[in-house]
């Protein structure tokens, strides 16, 4: 069993006060907090090892390069990729999806179809809209059921030989729904469509195994995984990354440059133009080590317990409605209280030290689907506790009292 106090002790920010109260941080879906090991790794890098990577023959450059590539190997092991060059470092999930969507522009023709879902984050909608606009492909959308899960029956109807790519989230950031991506991937592959999974909300919560999953692309952000901001991962199967055209042009991603003809480098460099976020990538290793040290299965179990408790507690508040009640959910509770605007709830519980998110969570189509301006969202992480849930519920009750 996890020793939560020992875990909490690794996160310095959890000691701070907000508005005179102990911070209760329930905005983990937006970004997680960072353990001391990650903070130290960045500082150590800058104080002792800083140098540009992949280019220099001098000692520091070699050191930085080795450490940078060590993270790539760590990510490879973390998600069970076959090769380390199947791991591309980007600046985040949004960057990863844009990289793929931009490349697919040239692989698609009029009449081809891309399928996404109604629950996607804007980062998994807008790049495909842009991709379709330029390539002439058509965007199809898997609708949501009332409980916030995907209408898999409709998915079957949408799939056809025209389907070239399916891009859906592993876990919904606004509803908490855990999608049955194994089934989605298998069904899409039956039609020879590629599948991209937006794992932004999954990678710190559930175990990942690319070999079992068989996704063609999978991506996530380090900052939602106890790691630094400005670092993302794009996993892609070697054979597909090899046919995908490069995204950005620049240093590192070329083999030869001349004005007559430029040829591109091999994986992973082909997709990593320019100086990367070296300190961030190096520190990211510590974040993954933090997770693997705890064991991801233990994290999943503990968070399920927290979710169950929190769900039961918030539902005791009269007039409160949860959006996203699928059978298989991750630690996210999106809710509204009858007659209240989520913004007002957020502003008031903040005064009691409780950080929750309010708004559309970059998922306007979900809000439109449920005809609401937004929700208040509690999103959990492994360092959260039942006591914090109690504080939060109390704060929500107080807000309700003040606002009614």
């Amino acid at each position, binding site marked *: 069993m996890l020793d939560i106090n020992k875990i909490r002790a690794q996160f310095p920010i959890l000691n701070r006060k907000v508005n005179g109260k102990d911070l209760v941080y329930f905005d983990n879906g937006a970004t997680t907090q960072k353990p001391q090991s990650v903070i130290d790794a960045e500082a150590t890098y800058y104080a002792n090892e800083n140098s540009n990577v992949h280019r220099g023959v001098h000692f520091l450059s070699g050191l930085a390069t080795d450490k940078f590539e060590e993270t790539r190997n760590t990510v490879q092991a973390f998600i069970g990729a076959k090769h380390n060059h199947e791991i591309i470092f980007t600046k985040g999930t949004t960057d990863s999806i844009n990289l793929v969507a931009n490349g697919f522009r040239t692989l698609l023709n009029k009449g081809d179809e891309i399928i996404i879902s109604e629950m996607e984050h804007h980062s998994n909608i807008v790049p495909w809209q842009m991709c379709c606009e330029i390539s002439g492909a058509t965007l199809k959308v898997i609708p949501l059921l009332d409980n916030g899960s995907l209408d898999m029956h409709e998915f079957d109807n949408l799939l056809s030989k025209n389907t070239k790519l399916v891009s859906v989230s592993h876990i919904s950031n606004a509803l908490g729904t855990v999608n049955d991506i194994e089934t989605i991937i298998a069904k899409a592959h039956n039609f020879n469509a590629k599948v991209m999974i937006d794992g932004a909300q999954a990678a710190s919560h559930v175990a990942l195994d690319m070999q079992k999953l068989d996704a063609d692309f999978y991506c996530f952000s380090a900052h939602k995984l106890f790691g630094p901001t400005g670092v993302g991962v794009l996993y892609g199967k070697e054979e597909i990354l090899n046919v995908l055209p490069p995204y950005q042009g620049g240093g590192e991603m070329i083999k030869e440059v001349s004005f007559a003809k430029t040829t591109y480098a091999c994986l992973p460099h082909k997709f990593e133009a320019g100086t990367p976020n070296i300190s961030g990538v190096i520190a990211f290793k510590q974040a993954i080590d933090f997770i693997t040290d705890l064991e991801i299965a233990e994290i999943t179990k503990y968070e399920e317990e927290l979710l169950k408790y929190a769900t039961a507690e918030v539902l005791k508040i009269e007039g409160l409605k949860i959006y996203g009640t699928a059978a298989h959910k991750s630690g996210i509770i999106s809710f509204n209280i009858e007659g209240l*605007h989520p913004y007002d709830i957020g502003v008031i519980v903040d005064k009691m030290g409780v950080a929750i998110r309010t708004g559309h969570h970059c998922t306007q189509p979900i809000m439109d689907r449920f005809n609401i301006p937004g929700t208040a969202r509690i999103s959990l992480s492994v360092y959260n506790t039942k006591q914090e849930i109690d504080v939060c519920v109390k704060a929500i009750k107080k807000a309700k009292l003040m606002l009614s």
Partner: protein
Amino acid sequence: MSTIKEIQTEITEDFAIFDDWMQKYEYLIDLGKELSPIDEQYKTEDNLIKGCQSRVWLHAEYTKGKIIYTADSDAIMTRGIIAVLINVLSGQSPSEIANAKLDFINKIGLKEQLSPTRANGLVSMIKQMKIYALAFNN
């Protein structure tokens, strides 16, 4: 009618009574509830100021050398602050509004709500109020 400066002093004194944020927020919520409603016909797309989270509608009318503002929001805390702002600026002359320094904002501790980076549309609202003032001033 009091000047903008006088009204600001008054408001600052009103808020000074409260010992804690809770009383202050409750007062703001009350102000929000009491805000005279905007005429429904003015709740148009054109009059909408979009913050990320709460929406603000602002309407301005110019009569007898004064600007009368009416406004609304879907969030009550935002309405409360709107009520204060209208209290300060509505009914004043364009030049006074255009030149007004809204220093009560800091004094009563609303700075957080009115920081330029907040998502509630209030900063854009103040900007829009001043733009009306400049327009009517010509």
